[in-house]
């Protein structure tokens, strides 16, 4: 108990110092210090390299169950699409007249699949899935795209290790890329 109280006191002092520091150095002294706990609660950004992926693990098989319950109504039982985007297939179609853009064919970094599902899906209840369930659903979608075996499990390390087929497809912006003349007559 005394240790706990001491910890709280230390935390309070640290928070005060934090706040004082913010006020001391800010040009306008507006706002208050964000605590590490507050930042941790809100910062759900997962980097393309897998940075900030949370602990957790999920299997393809569990993912197929979660997908059937939470995702299939919009994305189809096998990710073939419906009201929601198609998620599966399309590899090798991007340079053709009928490109099919999916997670498998048009998604450069596997960890941001976790990021998107966690922050925005399912559409009727975003941020409701557990991290384990998000790993599982990610595993299932990657498996449907042939990027994971059916008996695989996924965690932060293995998700970051997956190289997406479209990783090197994306290029920078070369615009202005189209030229018109300023022809005024006899055009």
């Amino acid at each position, binding site marked *: 108990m005394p240790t706990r109280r001491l910890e709280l006191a230390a935390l309070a002092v640290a928070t005060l110092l934090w706040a004082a520091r913010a006020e001391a150095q800010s040009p306008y002294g507006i706002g208050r210090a964000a605590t590490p706990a507050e930042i941790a609660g809100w910062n759900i950004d997962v980097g393309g390299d897998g940075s900030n992926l949370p602990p957790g693990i999920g299997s393809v098989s569990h993912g197929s169950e979660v997908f059937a319950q939470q995702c299939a109504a919009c994305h189809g039982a096998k990710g073939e699409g419906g009201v929601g985007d198609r998620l599966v297939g399309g590899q090798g179609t991007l340079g053709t007249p009928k490109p099919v853009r999916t997670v498998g064919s048009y998604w450069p970094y596997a960890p941001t699949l976790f990021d998107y599902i966690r922050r925005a899906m399912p*559409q009727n209840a975003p941020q409701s899935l557990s991290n384990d369930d998000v790993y599982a659903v990610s595993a299932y979608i990657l498996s449907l795209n042939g990027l994971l075996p059916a008996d695989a499990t996924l965690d932060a390390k293995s998700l970051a290790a997956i190289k997406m087929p479209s990783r090197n497809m994306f290029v920078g912006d070369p615009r202005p890329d189209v030229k*018109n003349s*300023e022809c005024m007559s006899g055009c």
Partner: protein
Amino acid sequence: MTKPTDIDRNVACASRRRFLREGSVLLGGAVIARGLAGSKARAAAENAGNLPPDVPEWMKTPGDPMGTQPYGAPSPFEKDVIKNISKTLPQYLSASGRTPLQDLDGIITPNGLFYERHHGGVPTIDPAQHRLMLHGLVDRPLIFTMDDIRRFPSESHIYFLECSGNPEYKKPYGKTASDLVGLLSCAEWTGVSLKLVLQEAGLQPGAKWVVAEGADSAAMTRSIPIEKCLDDAMLAYSQNGERLRPQQGYPLRLLVPGFEGNMNVKWLRRLHVTAEPAYSRDETSKYTDPMPDGTAREFTFYMEAKSIITRPSGGQRLSAPGFHEISGIAWTGRGKVRRVDVSVDDGKSWQEAQLQEPVLTRALTRFRLPWHWDGKPAVIQSRAIDETGYVQPTLAELLAVRGDNYVYHNNAIWPWRIAADGEVTNAHA
């Protein structure tokens, strides 16, 4: 110790107030009665009594009393000037609604007609419970309330906003100016320079991007290059003088002038200063531009120079040969519109249009050209040239480079066909 005269005056005031209150109820009743009879009366009025030499009916009875509309609305005769929202969208949570450009004058879009694009519906946010968190590569991670944000020095600017998919490259093309480029609007925004807010936290070396996140159910996430954040980006809380509309990000949105609409994150709740972009879904799998060779362009921020004639335009009809002013709007994400040319002979020759002053950076610019229509079929179109010297291209020129699977950033010249009977249609349709 109130003087008797003061008491008398108070009593007199109270009874006058009561009279006005009761009077307004009576007048209100009269208004409702007139409203019910309105359509019948209007039909009868077509040929009875409202035109010279007769005195119109609306001069023979008092109008609506003060307070009939505590927040004003357009005339009931303008009821068809509304957002252009397709009735056949696959869903309405991630969807868009267009500004009726062909029905508007000037350069400012009324707030109720500002185009909408959201990815998880429109949240209802209590500003007292809204927070902006600023963290990452900063000396002092900070949290701001809306009151905090409004304490910063403020600034106002007129900027356009345009969705990057406006329109697509594939047929079928829309019928009206709104169908084609109605994911475009322009407003005066008030807020704080993002640079000031970032300086408040202190940027650390290596800060190259700011990842902005919305407080909607899509938690919309886009990465903004730090150069833009330290240039003209702002955090806006007001639009055309009033607080942002919910559809525009109430209570706080990011504005990155001239960049594609999606980057102007609404319902802004978090700014994460980073060394790398987030590579979020909405800057990789969406809002990227697939090329015919199988590559895809990413981080295509700028909206390039563009213009469209809004009058006469698709869906309208010229009443008769003779004088008609051609009028439209031009804009560029790369600064100011330098010139707009108009052709009335299917692109064979072009004349310089008059630009309405002031011509503002990254705002809509209104252009006009006086025109005498000879009553023969014609094709009219406009071409914007911006201050970098860039010339708005034709659709054929764009397709030749990008192919028709390119989804976004279609800034093609758009011609209107005028038939002998005056009907105006999309010349590419």
